[in-house]
């Protein structure tokens, strides 16, 4: 029967810097390889709509004739399917999280 089995752990952490970080004053550094947000740069985009077809949540909307490209950020699950499919490599995934939004509208890029 051990009454003080936790004491060792408690004393060790009492004398150390706390493990919790002071977020939001110290922002969390994302790990490399993490899937944060989609980064869109449409300079080479041909509006082939492959990204919209592969998107599992239908977050991307592409209109070939009118040359529109928009994404609903709240539907995007950052699965990386569109990044892998784009033949012109216009889409990429950055490790930092997207900024929080307060409205449910689509982000229009073209």
């Amino acid at each position, binding site marked *: 029967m051990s009454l003080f089995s936790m004491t060792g752990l408690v004393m060790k952490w009492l004398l150390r810097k706390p493990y919790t970080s002071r977020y939001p004053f110290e922002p969390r550094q994302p790990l490399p390889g993490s899937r944060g947000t989609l980064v869109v740069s449409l300079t080479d985009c041909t509006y082939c709509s492959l990204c919209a077809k592969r998107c599992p949540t*239908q977050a991307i909307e592409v209109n070939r004739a009118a040359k529109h490209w928009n994404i*609903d950020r*709240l*539907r995007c699950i950052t699965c990386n399917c569109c990044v892998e499919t784009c033949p012109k490599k216009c889409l990429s995934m950055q490790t930092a999280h997207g900024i929080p939004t307060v409205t*449910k509208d689509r982000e229009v890029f073209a």
Partner: protein
Amino acid sequence: MREEQPIVAVTPNTLVGEVKTLCDQGWRLVQIGVTSLGELFEVNYSFDRDQHFLNLRLQIPAAGASLPSISGLYWCAFLYENEIHDLFDVTFDGLALDFKGTLYKTAQPFPFANRARAGVSTTVVQPV
């Protein structure tokens, strides 16, 4: 790697007898599942013993069907049978613990049953 998964066909009359044989031989109930095949429901009872897998399968009409409950032999079956009743509208006679349709409170009663399927809308709800 494909595991051996034998399927034994039974009828609603022979179901309880077959299940009693398996129960006496020490098989445990793994799951009870229903697949809708249009006009019929295919009910599948899965059993396991020492990593061997066995299925009992029977077919019942989709509308107004009823089956004997096996919860007298396997008490844990009450949960599966209540779920099947709430989703597919199949009545089970002799349920050990009958929730009388209140296990899942869905907006549409019997959402997986055929008559619900006939009226399934294909419009996707757009976010506002």
